[in-house]
């Protein structure tokens, strides 16, 4: 089993690498294009994958991945399951702030249990959970900006801030039972 490790490669100068994992490959491509279009002071390299583990043959050429993003479409059970299995192929070091989840279609008629399951997953791994409006350009741009904001920290581009530090600020506490009642 080949684990993806956060510190196995030297970082690039003025560079940051983000890996987008999405089983359905719907949102991935357009998000990737939007991300590289944003004006950053560094080279942002976006890599795409359907699931983990990543193939061995690319191992050499693959740069150090600073942020792994799992995109989950809430309307599909498979999307969630795939992300869940992929998580096993990440080195635990990644969970110190270098993983985040992006959820799409949360504002629709989806079973509430699935939303809760995703929130529980993110909370138990101490990862931020972002909701994305994938149908509008504005929504995609927003998601790109937010991912870049996280990437900037995880790639070490912000002085005095580390990914672990950021993750202590952004992780959910486990949703409690009262949360299921939704209102006070």
């Amino acid at each position, binding site marked *: 089993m080949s684990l993806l490790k956060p510190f196995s490669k030297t970082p690039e100068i003025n560079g940051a690498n983000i890996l987008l994992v999405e089983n359905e490959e719907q949102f991935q491509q357009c998000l990737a294009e939007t991300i590289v279009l944003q004006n950053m002071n560094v080279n942002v390299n976006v890599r795409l994958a359907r699931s983990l583990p990543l193939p061995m043959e690319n191992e050499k050429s693959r740069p150090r991945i600073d942020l792994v993003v799992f995109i989950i479409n809430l309307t599909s059970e498979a999307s969630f399951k795939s992300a869940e299995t992929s998580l096993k192929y990440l080195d635990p070091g990644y969970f110190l702030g270098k993983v985040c989840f992006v959820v799409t279609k949360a504002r629709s008629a989806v079973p509430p249990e699935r*939303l809760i399951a995703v929130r529980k997953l993110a909370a138990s791994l101490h990862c931020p959970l972002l909701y994305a*409006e994938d149908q*509008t350009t504005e929504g995609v741009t*927003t998601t790109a900006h*937010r991912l870049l904001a996280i990437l900037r920290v995880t790639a070490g581009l*912000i002085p005095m801030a580390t990914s672990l530090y*950021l993750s202590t600020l952004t992780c959910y506490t486990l949703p409690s039972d009262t*949360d299921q009642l939704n*209102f006070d």
Partner: protein
Amino acid sequence: MAEASNSFSSELGSSNETDESVSNRSSNRSLRLAEKSQRKSEASDPLLLALKYFSEVKAGTPRIGNDVMERNMALVERVGLSRGLPPEGISVMLDYAMSLRMGAVPCVRVLKFLIPATVVPQEAIVRGMAWLCVGKLAVSTQVFFLKWVLTIFDMIDSKEQLRAIYGFIFSFVTEEQLCPFICHLLYLLTRKESVRPFRVRKLLEVQTKLGRQPFLMHLLSLYKVFCPGFVAVSLPSGIRGGFRSHNSQWKTVLSAVQKKNNGQVTSDICLTLGAKCKPNSRKRKCNHLQLPSLSSSVQRSSSTSRKVFPLEQLHSFSQLLENLHRIELPSQMGSLLGSSLALCYLDYVQDDSAFLRLNFWLGHALHEEFIFCNGEEGSGSSSESLNFLNRLLSTQHFLQEGFFSTEGFLFKFLNVWDGAFLRPQILGLLSDISVVPSSCIRQLLFEPLMQLYFTSTLYFKCSVIECLNNMLLKWLTWHSVYALKDGLDISLNSHTPMNMSLSGLMDSIMELVHFVGRLATVGLQLEGCHSLLLSFTLDFYETVCDMFLKFDLPLVAMPPLGVFLPALFATDPVSVDRLCFIMYRYKKNLMAAKCQQQETKQGFHISSQTYREFNRYQLIIVSCLWNSKMFQPGMAVEVDQNILALSKVPEPSHSFNLIHHPAFLGYALDFHHKCWPERESIDLNSIKAGKQWDWYLEFIFTQGFQGLQQFFQSFISRHSVAGTTAQGPGDTQPTSG
């Protein structure tokens, strides 16, 4: 007494009218209309022919193998699903279906395509209810019919006759499967007159059988609002679940049809309406998010006898003033949002039931549209949402109060928000929420906001801080208003902060202030102390520092070091100036609090921690800007002397005084140039000597830095500052190291 008999006699008037129409008017009228328009169009409209078929077809006509019926049915179905059916079409088809003239199979099919193009005549619904009473329909079909009625409820042209058969509708609450829908329908129809002890008894009886179901609680709470004496049981103050939504079946088609019809108001559908097409029914686009148009539950004819003034006839503010005492609220509370006059009225009457109904309508609409939306998210619908939320915002501003259904919606929505969708509106609504108890503020508000804040751009961070500042301002304003009223509760919907004890309010405010302190500290760090974020943060603390003097809240909370230091060492003079102003206000507040404490002996207690923090900050500012004792031992900010030596900065302790501080260096150079235009080499230290210092201060203060001026005038009070009176240089001059 007089009032009671008044309302009774009026009911008399209206039911007289009801009497005739329920019995025979409806089908006749619609047929007459159909005939009339048929003659007009010279029997050419196939839809009318088809409708004629269904209105005349005899009971027991075979269904299977009946091609004529099938053809006509397909035609009406097509029209219904594409353009919607005209009012008489609805009447005819509903009657045909509910009478089961051709059995139960066509019934469900007809209900499925019964999409109104404009309005639904109330007679049709009354007849439908009558068929329900016959009891031949299968339970599932009965439920289906009720769902349909609930979906098109806003489009029923008048509800008076439906209210007349309130008792008949009510009798269905005992049917377990129908109960949720019946309760919902009753909720929409209930008026004060409808609330009777025997109905309350019945509902309670049903409740013991079915348990405390939300639909029963809703109806009971409405009854309780109307007649508190009748409903003795205690109900939770906010049952926020709402009635389950069950209209998705028709919703999409309905909104599509309505959108289409909007474009072509003068289409043939409208023409067949003939005389019945009132001008206001044309405006009735009634998309799910469009506000229902104003239509009072009283019909015009009866309104004269009743001496009430329907809101829909109100056209000017002066009319409102004249008729203030006899205005009838509309049957659809959502329509209130659409009319500023109606809102004025709502604001004055402070009618609990009106607020309850409005809240219910609103909660339902918000949930449907923004959390449970089905698929397509076109640009059209999002501009609709935009308008809707803007309208809601301005309504809340006008009423100076948030609706509790908005709050419920927001707390839910924050959990699935991307931080950009309708941002100004969402944050605007969020800043209107009433005080959240400190026990749940973290979970409801802080957690979702934290996730969004720390993963978003600078601009979002700024708008969150701004939003929380506005929220704090609202809470404080409420407090100061209600504190003045001395506990007198003039609240409209009993969700105002004064339901909270003072200590509860202070806890919540303290939580909020600390939360913003954390957001600002880390935000400034992540964004490299961006001036914009700093500016919004200082806005917030301008509110916080004056909580006691401006809002009468006995609370003083200092900013954290993570906000204080970036502001003090900012490269722009405005931030430094504003920080000084804030410190000056803190001092005023603390002194006033101390005074009160000594005078009344029962003033609030400020912790010594707060005083310590304040003194420390004061010391830092004075030693850094004024005394040039920065970095010296015991002077608050300490840095290893070796490092200072390595930096090779001459006289590091001077480097942040009013002359050398990066924010003021430019002014110092300017001043130097004006004082000694002939000098070639610049020696800034010469500003510190003698009169020059006074002049320099005056120079700086005249640049608009009022905060600095107030700060130094109040803190270094023994000396005159800025040369108001010329004293010996030894006095005014700062002690230079």
